């Protein structure tokens, strides 16, 4: 019997296909698997911003999709909206908008957010309607499942799943600083 499996490792590691903020060669890469409709991810959103502000160039932050569509009926289209905005170079502004408006994620609002961000909203609307990014979103999801994602949000620090309390800023920062100090980039 397998009672203590090796800690799950992020597979694939962060790469050029990911949505990332911060330098590629930062000593720490933080990857979040998130769901735009998940209230816990909503709580994590300002904490991640805080962590990014404090760590500056020493941190690369990557966001991958993990929509729990059976529990969250708007999560899939919200992810489509962010990916569609990404096609127009605005993934992060849409990502932020969605987490700041978790109570209004229906298609009409998604298109309105695209307009507010100055995007071609018709393109965004069409891509949402066609679920143009479903394959990518599903690939993100399955990479999470195989990497040991067990709920949302799940964070990985340099490919190792962070099982501590992300909602405790001190503990979260300490884990990131430790990864930075160890310099053990595992990729």
């Amino acid at each position: 019997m397998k009672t203590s499996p090796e800690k799950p490792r992020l597979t694939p590691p962060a790469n050029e296909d990911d949505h990332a903020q911060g330098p590629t060669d930062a000593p720490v890469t933080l990857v979040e698997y998130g769901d735009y409709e998940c209230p816990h991810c909503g709580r994590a959103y300002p904490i991640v911003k805080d962590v990014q502000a404090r760590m500056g160039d020493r941190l690369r932050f990557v966001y991958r999709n993990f929509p729990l569509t059976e529990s969250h009926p708007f999560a899939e289209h919200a992810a489509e909206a962010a990916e569609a905005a990404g096609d127009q170079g605005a993934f992060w502004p849409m990502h932020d908008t969605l987490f700041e408006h978790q109570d209004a994620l229906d298609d009409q609002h998604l298109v309105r957010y695209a307009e507010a961000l100055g995007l071609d909203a018709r393109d965004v609307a069409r891509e949402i309607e066609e679920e143009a990014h479903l394959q990518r979103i599903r690939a993100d999801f399955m990479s999470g499942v195989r990497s040991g994602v067990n709920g949302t949000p799940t964070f990985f620090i340099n490919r190792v799943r962070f099982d501590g309390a992300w909602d405790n800023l001190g503990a979260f920062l300490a884990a990131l600083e430790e990864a930075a100090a160890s310099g053990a980039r595992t990729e």
Partner: protein
Amino acid sequence: MSSAARVHGTGGTDTSPEHALAAGTAAPDFTLHSTPDQSVSLSDFRGHPVILAFYPADWSPVCSDQMALYNEILPEFRRYDAELMGISVDGVWCHRAFAEARNLHFPLLADFEPKGGVAQAYGVYRPEDGTAGRALFVIDDEGIIRWSYVSPIGVNPGADGILDALEHLQPREVAR
């Protein structure tokens, strides 16, 4: 209430989670209620891999995430022709309310009478809590346990171990 659970086979008598039945063991058969008027027997699924997910209780936060996660991954399990069943000591009406609230598309079995009898047979009952532990079993199409795992009670074990185990049941993978 009449006896809803009939545990066949010979499970281990030691009920601590450290004594969960190991790979290579024949999975004890059982019959449990899946709804107020329907029962499910493990032997009904001979010919298909079966995933048994024991969990402590409906409604508790960690379990809910775990069951919601498995609900989302059902299509992947089905690629391996595998049937997933959740098992806890909760009764059928509790399971029904929980499954409806979470929109679950797989059966939750009530290990209710005798309480925890199936969990005991699989060696994953926690007498100190009066609940099943958080334990996973992957059983092959001939009823042999091929992988088992007991998670710390507060940790959602995710699904990667299940998928790895199903993958090793070659050549069972069904092309998508």
